[in-house]
């Protein structure tokens, strides 16, 4: 029962266990049973603690009430020291575990920059091919490596909150440039409106005329959720942002090639002993990798 094709056939018929097994195999690097790139996904990212998982929990409710299905891939970092991971996103989406119209899967990054990326696209493809109408990638947007993850989504929503001073942080990390929509959560708290204004003014300062919409919601009070779902269904990316995402994906693929190269260790050693410069090592790996 480990053949990806037969698991895919069962998964299409609604066998959740087969789907779960199949995603594990894809995570381990097995070839996808479906054509690459047929999937479509929405990335939800933002700093820790802004309420991404809670918000996704509310989005799930809204989609369910509309009779639609949703699959969530919740991505958290692995510990660089032990390789272990604590995946707690689904405790904020409790409502998800009783409906057949929701599938939530927690994923650890497993410290392979690029490694997770290799399996993310096939996972989204398989979920879409199995008929899940909405596929959401959730990731903490705290640094460059997380941006690389969310860049694999077809559209990106950045979630932020009031009083975080994070607007500048988000700009520094470069997530703002990738976002197709910005959601300010916790609109029930004071200063949410001000945070939204700050984001809007930061966006209008750029030269890009196709700036993303800024929405205020409260996942806690369930306000603005229905409007958010409506906006998401019409959400389109821009050419500029699509190009930026492709750029991030290309860098991921490049990193992945470098880190999985058989020549990596010998090149490091050569640099260490002074037999190669950094540039020579890059050229050595580039020219001799297959």
């Amino acid at each position, binding site marked *: 029962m480990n053949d990806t094709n037969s698991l895919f056939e069962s998964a299409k018929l609604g066998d959740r266990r087969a789907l*779960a097994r199949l995603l594990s195999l894809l995570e381990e690097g097995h070839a996808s049973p479906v054509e690459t790139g047929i999937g479509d996904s929405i990335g939800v990212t933002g700093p820790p603690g802004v309420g991404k998982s809670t918000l996704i929990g509310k989005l799930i409710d809204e989609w369910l009430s509309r009779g639609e299905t949703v699959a969530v891939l919740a991505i958290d970092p*692995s510990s660089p020291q032990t390789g272990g991971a*604590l*995946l707690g996103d*689904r405790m904020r989406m409790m409502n998800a575990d009783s409906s057949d119209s929701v599938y939530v899967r927690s994923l650890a990054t497993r410290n392979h920059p690029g490694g997770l990326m290799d399996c993310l696209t096939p996972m989204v493809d398989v979920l879409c091919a199995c008929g899940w109408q909405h596929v959401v990638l959730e990731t903490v947007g705290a640094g460059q490596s997380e941006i690389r993850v969310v860049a694999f989504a077809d559209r990106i929503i950045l979630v932020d909150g009031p009083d975080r001073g994070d607007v500048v942080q988000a700009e520094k990390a470069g997530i703002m440039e990738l976002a197709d929509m910005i959601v300010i959560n916790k609109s029930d708290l004071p200063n949410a409106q001000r945070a939204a204004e700050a984001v809007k003014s930061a966006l209008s300062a750029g030269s890009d005329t196709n700036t993303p919409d800024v929405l205020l919601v409260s996942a806690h009070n369930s306000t603005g959720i229905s409007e958010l779902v409506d906006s998401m269904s019409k959400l389109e990316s821009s050419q500029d942002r699509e190009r930026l995402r492709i750029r991030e994906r290309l860098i991921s693929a490049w990193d992945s090639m470098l880190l999985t190269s058989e020549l990596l260790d010998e090149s490091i050693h050569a640099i260490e002993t002074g037999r190669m410069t950094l540039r020579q090592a890059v050229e050595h790996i580039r020219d001799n990798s297959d």
Partner: protein
Amino acid sequence: MRIVVAKPGLDGHDRGAKVIARALRDGGHEVIYTGLRRTPQEIVRIVTDEDAAAVGLSTLSGAHNVLIPKVCDGLREAGLNDVVVFAGGIIPEHDRSALQEQGVRAIFGPGSTTKNILEFLDMISSRKESSDPVGVGEEIGWYWSE
């Protein structure tokens, strides 16, 4: 190993479960924590969807004799016979053998160390490799002792 750490039933105390979750992570495992007040059906669903190899059930409320067998039955009904079930919390000695007969492979109580639990999981891995029964739907008999 992918491990679900779950809190079945109405018990509202999860400090212990969180300590275990963190210890398992530090032991190199991928831990999915469910949060409080989960029904046995929800726990089976989570183990299924996460393709977990093991599930740890933490109960402090005294309802272990009802809740833990329900999870074990649910896993077997879902065809997840190879999933390893272990338990922790306040489970009196005289209740333990009945739970072992349900397929629970280890019960950790006050005084157990996180090292014990990691050793148990190492033992599970080596038993799996040699195809010895460890799953909830596999032959009963082997049970972890410190």
